[in-house]
């Protein structure tokens, strides 16, 4: 039993990301309202961001900003003291930094499309839009 709890403690970031991602996936597939689908897409993106950022964590390390990095003394001789184990992985942070802003931009495009759909069909419910399309 304690084995189970220690494995949950080791993998809890993956548990949270899987739950969030499945919620997003379910919303994209099953919800009929277009705005709810867009919200589901955003929850999905949040899950992926959480996954990447949690991969960047390193036990006993600090944020990836080199300490005592200011001034002239660090050029040349001082730089040999930098140890990679003392700083967390910057790579997932770089990837997610841009992904967050791109997520906002794509959310804007999705909402713009939803507004156009609403202007034309006077509704955002998928089944009502499909019914209107069949009538024609």
């Amino acid at each position, binding site marked *: 039993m304690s084995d189970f709890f220690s494995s949950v*403690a*080791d*993998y*809890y970031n*993956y*548990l949270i990301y*899987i*739950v969030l*991602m*499945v919620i997003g*996936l*379910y919303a994209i*597939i*099953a919800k*009929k309202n277009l705005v709810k689908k867009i919200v589901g897409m955003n929850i999905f993106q949040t899950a992926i961001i959480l996954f990447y950022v*949690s*991969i*960047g*964590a*390193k*036990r*006993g*390390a600090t*944020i*990836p*900003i*080199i*300490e005592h*990095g*200011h001034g002239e003394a*660090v*050029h040349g001789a001082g*730089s040999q003291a*930098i*140890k*990679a*184990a003392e*700083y967390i*992985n*910057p*790579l*997932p*942070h*770089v990837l997610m*930094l*841009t992904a*967050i*802003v*791109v997520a*906002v*931009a*794509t959310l*804007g*495009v999705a*909402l*713009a*499309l939803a*507004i*156009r759909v609403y*202007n034309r069909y006077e509704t955002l419910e998928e089944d009502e839009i499909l019914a209107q399309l069949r009538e024609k």
Partner: protein
Amino acid sequence: MRTLGILVAALTCALLFYAMGDFPPWADPGSAAHTHVSPRYIEKTMEETSVPNAVTAVLADYRGFDTMFETTVIFAAGVVCFFILRLPKKEGPIFRRYRHTLTGMTIRVKCTRKIPPVLEEFEMIDNLWAPHDLIIKTSCRILVPFLQLFGLYVIAHGHHSPGGGFQGGVILGASMILLAISHDLRTALARMGEKVHALLCPIGVLIYAGTGALCLVLGRDFLDYGALAGILHVDPVTARSHGILIVEIGVGLAVMATMIWIYNNISSRGEYDEGL
């Protein structure tokens, strides 16, 4: 559809839980992500770029090509929003509401589509919802300049602290959006018009790509900022740091303009007349 959704979600959940055991445990220093390229970034960033913030160095220098196209994606999203939503100016009369600022009385006037000049005693308000809220307006008006100052600090200090073009650009954009929410869209548009967004957005991308092309012209690789050493009169390592700053400014401009542009288009449904 609901049953199918639950089925697909449960199947994905089961597959991912099954695969979870193959992932490294949380915060394991020996995991695959920490062993190959990332130690090199951390150990060499001071030596090669003189930027203490490894995230900024990787973002704008080691993976600068990637970031350039992320900026292009944001620019494209702004342009797409514009093309989907923006409507041409409609003709014909329209009803507008005015508030008499001294008495708080509201009148409804039939007038042309053109936005009329600012009157002294009357204030134009939106048709849908426009409460006269002194506390919100005043506190937002005081907050906006400090937000913009903080945004500029985040862009300029991105080498030494968490920050950079993306974060600072979003803060700058948020300050203008806050102005549009707390007052109305016309106030924000009078400060920063539609043409300004449409110009700043490609200018930001142009600064980024132009810096890369300048390095190409000076005989080094695309986005190899060491080539700027001759122009900036510094050694090649410091030139990388300055090149990153130039590029971050471009990113900040593009992100700020795109955020405001998308907000204006969506909130006014492309009419640029009445906001939220």
